[in-house]
C-alpha cells in the first residue's frame, strides 16, 4: 500500500450537541502556559488541555487515531507544539472540515497527515475506521462506505514532505 494511504480510528471532537467542534484554537489545543516546552515527549500530556470536555484527551486517545474536528481547526498562533502534541500521543493525523492556514502548514512540515474534508459533518462516529488517500484526496469511512473529497486537494508539497519525513529532511539546493 502507498505511504500516502493512511488508516486509523476516528476520535471525533464533538460538542454537547453532537456536532464537530469548530474554531478549536491553538490555546485550546496547547495552552500558552506550556509554550516553554520544547521536548516532544513532554507535549502529549497537554494536548487539548484547554478544550472544554476534552481535558482528559491524552488519557482517552490511543495511538493510531485520527483527530477529527469541525471548521477552522488550529486557528490562532503559530506554535508548533499544537501539532507536535498529537504526534507525541501517536495520533495518525488530523481530519477537519477546514484547517487554519498556519496550522495546516505546521502539520505538513512536521509530516503529520492532515486534510480538509468539507462534507465531514455528520459522517463520522467515534471509532470509525477512516482512510485518507492522499494521492486522490479522498477520505473513506469503512462503516458507511462513504467516500468524501478533501478540498482543496492534498497538495503535492504535503506528499513530498511526508515522503521525506518532514520539511527539515527535504533536501534543498
Amino acid at each position, binding site marked *: 500500500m502507498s505511504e500516502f494511504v493512511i488508516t486509523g480510528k476516528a476520535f471525533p471532537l464533538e460538542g454537547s450537541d453532537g456536532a464537530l467542534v469548530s474554531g478549536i484554537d491553538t*490555546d*485550546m489545543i496547547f495552552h500558552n502556559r506550556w*509554550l516553554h516546552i520544547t521536548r516532544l515527549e513532554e507535549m502529549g500530556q497537554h494536548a487539548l488541555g484547554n478544550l472544554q470536555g476534552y481535558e482528559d484527551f491524552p488519557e482517552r486517545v490511543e495511538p493510531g487515531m485520527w483527530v477529527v474536528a469541525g471548521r*477552522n481547526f488550529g486557528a490562532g498562533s503559530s506554535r*508548533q507544539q499544537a501539532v507536535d502534541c498529537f504526534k507525541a500521543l501517536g495520533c495518525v493525523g488530523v481530519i477537519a472540515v477546514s484547517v487554519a*492556514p*498556519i496550522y495546516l502548514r505546521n502539520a505538513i*512540515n512536521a509530516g503529520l497527515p492532515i486534510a480538509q474534508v468539507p462534507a465531514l459533518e455528520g459522517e463520522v462516529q467515534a471509532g470509525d475506521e477512516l482512510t485518507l488517500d492522499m494521492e486522490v484526496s479522498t477520505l473513506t469511512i469503512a462503516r458507511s462506505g462513504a467516500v468524501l473529497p478533501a478540498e482543496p486537494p492534498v497538495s503535492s508539497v504535503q506528499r513530498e514532505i511526508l515522503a521525506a519525513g518532514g520539511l527539515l529532511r527535504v533536501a534543498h539546493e
Partner: protein
Amino acid sequence: MGATIIEKIVAARVGRPVAAGEVVWLPQDIVTARDFGGASVVKNFQDAYGEDAEVFDPERIRFTFDCNAPANTVGYATNQQLCRRFARKHGIRVHDVDAGIGSHLLIEQGLALPGRTAIGTDSHYNILGAVGALGQGMGDIDVAFAFRNGQVWFEVPPTVRVNVNATLAPNASAKDLTLAVVKHFGSDGLLGKAAEFYGDVIEQLDLPGRITLASMGTEMSALVCFIPPNGAVLDWLGRRSGSAPEGIAADADAVYAEEVTLELGEIEPMIACPYSPDNVHAVREVAAGNVRVDTGFIGSCTNGRAEDYAAAFAQLEGGHVAEGVTLKLVPATREVFAAMLYSGLLEKLFNVGALVHNQGCGGCAAGQVGMTGAGEVQVSTSNRNFRGKQGAGQTYLASPATVAASVRAGRIAVPEEAS
C-alpha cells in the same frame, strides 16, 4: 493577465509570473524567531543540519524576544539564553527583552517595505500587510528551514478584493472599523486567502490604523490583508529606511477569486464579546447591559502605538480610572515608550491611574502582564479573546478609546467624541 498584490510580490521574488494555486520556494528578505518558538527553531536547526551548520545569511536573521519580556519563568529564561548563544555564534542580531514587539520593530526600522517578504514565529506577522509587505507567521520547523535555506515553500493563495464603503463616527477608530470587518467575515471568512482592502475609509487610515486592520487578518484566518500604502505611509517608510520605497498595487486587470463590497455605513464603536473575536456588537448595545469591568489592557501588536495611548488619554483626561478598576498599558516597542515618555503622555496616563509596564506583547503572551481570574472582566485592545487565553476570566476586545472610557466608568462604556 494582471496580477494581484501577492502574485506580484511572489513573482518578483521567484523571477517569473505566478498565479494562485502554484507552489513555489519563496525567498525571504528577513527571517525572525521570537522567544516563543525560538528555542525550538534553534533545536530543529541543529538537529537537522548539525551543530556547525551555517545559517543562510546572519544579516537577514533576527531574534526578537517580545513574549516573555523579561522572562518570568526559568523555562522561558533558559529558552531565551539558548537563542542568545546561537545568535552570538552565528553573528545574528538579537532584539532582546527590552526591544518590544518584533513585527513592529521591522516596520519602525524600515526593514518591512512594500513588496518585501518576511517570516517569523508570530501568527500576526501578516501585520506587515499594513505597509504592503508579505509577512507570514510560521511554525518553528518552517523558520528553522528558512534559517538554513533563506526560503519557505509557499502556495500562492487566491485573493479577495474587499471594497469598504463606510465612514467612522466621531467616537470611532480603526479598531472599530476592524471589528466591523471581522464581524462581517467571521473567524474563517478569509480562510487561507489574501485580501486587499480598498475604499476612502481605508485610504484615510494612518499607519497605526493600518496596523490595527492588518493585524486582525489572522482572526479571519486570512494569510495576509494588504492595505496598499499611500503617500504618507511611503514618506514615513522612506524616512525609516533611508531609501525611497516604491509602493505596491495590484494590476488594473488583476484576477480576484472574489470581490466583496462591504456597505458598513457610519461605523460606531464596536466590541467583541467573549469568547471569540468575531462575536462583535455595538458598544452601545453591550453597555446597555451594564457590564462591570475589573481591568483594562491597552497594548498588543494590534493597538500598542503612541497614537493609541493618546486616544485612550483623551477619554481619561479630567477624570481617573474608577476605584476598584485597573488599567494596564504595554507599549508595543521601546520607541513607543520613549515617545510617550518624552511627550509627557506617560506622566498624564500615570496620573489618571494607569499601570505602565515595559514594552512587549504583554497580556497576549502567557500572562506576562495580567492574567484574569475566574469571573474577572477585562476590556482589552488586543486581538484574541478565546476562552482561557488570558486567564480564567472574560475578555472583551475594543478600541483604546472604548477601553479607557470603560475603565473610567467601571463598566463597559461608549467613548466620548474625540476632541
